[in-house]
């Protein structure tokens, strides 16, 4: 138990101490001592600030991510379960996936303005691809014997979707959702850097432009912590949802 704790905490502590010690006497205006950054962190990220800037960011992130998940899974199941549709759609999907979403921000701004809608669309436009492509793969890989069994027992339509296709593709779907999560955080920040009046990305750029360097750094640290927290949450959810899958894999490895 203690050994595990040491392993988990070891590297973060070493990095923190190194940064702290190395920057302690820093005269560089752009790389202030960590001591100063931490002080700025406490002063900057007050509850009001969290409510005014972090909450809107998280709301956009949540909306964009959920929408992308919904669209990605729905379209992915449709394409994965239908060979003809898949043949028609796959090259197009690969093309869209290859377009880096940040370059779409100016385009999306032209159509969707600079409000929350634009930011949500930017997040969706980037997050939907890993979910969609992984869902297609997952649905396509549904075991033939299992599909026969389902058919023989009259599982068709919605029941087939719910009891066969979705659970059987869930390991891949969740892998796609994990990729999408980090993309969503990146796009949340980027979309707020372009045109916004609040949000984490906006605030960090604002600090940088007004040469509030320790505050800027503190914002970056907050973003890192946020990403870490979300991915831990995701891991917990995944462990719960895919308990059967990990158990199955362990059982197969043992035999």
């Amino acid at each position, binding site marked *: 138990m203690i050994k595990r704790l040491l392993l988990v905490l070891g590297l973060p502590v070493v990095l923190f101490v190194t940064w702290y010690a190395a920057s302690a006497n820093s005269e560089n205006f752009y790389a202030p001592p960590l001591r100063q950054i931490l002080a700025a962190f406490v002063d900057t990220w007050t509850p009001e600030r969290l409510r005014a800037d972090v909450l809107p960011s998280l709301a956009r992130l949540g909306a964009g991510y959920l929408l992308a998940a919904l669209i990605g899974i729905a379209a992915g199941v449709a394409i994965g379960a239908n060979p003809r549709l898949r043949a028609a759609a796959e090259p197009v999907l690969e093309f869209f996936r290859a377009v880096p979403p940040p370059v779409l921000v100016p385009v999306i701004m032209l159509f969707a303005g600079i409000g929350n809608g634009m930011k949500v669309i930017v997040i969706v436009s980037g997050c939907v691809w890993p979910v969609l492509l992984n869902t297609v793969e997952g649905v396509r890989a549904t*075991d033939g*014997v*299992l599909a*026969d*069994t389902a*058919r*023989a*027992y*009259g*599982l068709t339509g919605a*029941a087939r979707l719910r*009891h*066969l296709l979705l*659970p*059987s593709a*869930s390991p891949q779907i969740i892998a796609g959702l994990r990729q999408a999560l980090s993309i969503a955080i990146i796009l949340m920040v980027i979309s707020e850097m372009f045109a916004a009046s609040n949000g984490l990305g906006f605030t960090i750029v604002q600090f940088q432009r007004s040469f509030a360097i320790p505050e800027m750094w503190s914002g970056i640290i907050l973003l890192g912590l946020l990403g870490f927290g979300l991915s831990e949450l995701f891991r917990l959810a995944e462990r719960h949802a895919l308990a*059967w*899958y990990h*158990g*199955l894999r362990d*059982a*197969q490895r043992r035999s």
Partner: protein
Amino acid sequence: MLEVKGLRKVYRSGSREVEALRDLTFTVAAGELVCLVGPSGCGKTTLLRCIAGLLGPTSGEVTVGDRSGLAIVFQEYGRSLFPWMTVRDNVDLPLRQKKVPKARRRELVAEALTAVGLDGTESAYPWQLSGGMQQRVAIARAVAYEPSILLMDEPFAAVDAQTRADLEDLVRSLWQRLGMTILFVTHDIDEAVYLGQRVLMLSASPTVVQDELTVDLPAERDQLHTRADPRFVTLRTRVYSQIQAAKTGTASGAAGELSSADR
């Protein structure tokens, strides 16, 4: 009752055609236990899939009455149980789909699991069980469905010999108790003779019914005595020689003589 008439199945891939089943005609009476044997690759699985409605025949017809009265047990138990569901949910799902009321479902699931000797595993996942137990779950699922016809596709080919003997006895006792029609496909000649009231022998592909044999062993069978019974040995020899003949493509011949001597 199960009736197969002039069943033919041709697989087409591009310009290539493979005739898997040529012309199959047979009936299985209601409540009968019939075993189907044939050399490997003779289209046994294709036949079963046609009967189950999973595959459309090229010509001919299959009459099974109501398809919702049909249950199937596959050879690949590891791939025919839903790994994300507990044993109970696996058995329960087809019943839910059939819109059986909840109280009745609970009864059926409990009865079926007891019948296959799996009490106390309701909350386990299939992959936590041994191969033989997983196949028992698949059998329980089929039994709980209360089918009038039960199709079994080499169900015991992938379990060890002792488990296999237990499962054979399980199938016979379930059949005697519940009185459903069973079509049991196997490549194991001893298994076919031990289990069946009648054995249908298929030829090599393209497949026809090569011969058929009524197993006139007593209804009460057990692994030790039945398999040592001289009558059992005669019957299995006859089936064996027919299958050998089917492999080389010479129908009847020596086997025919033996069978006429039998009669």
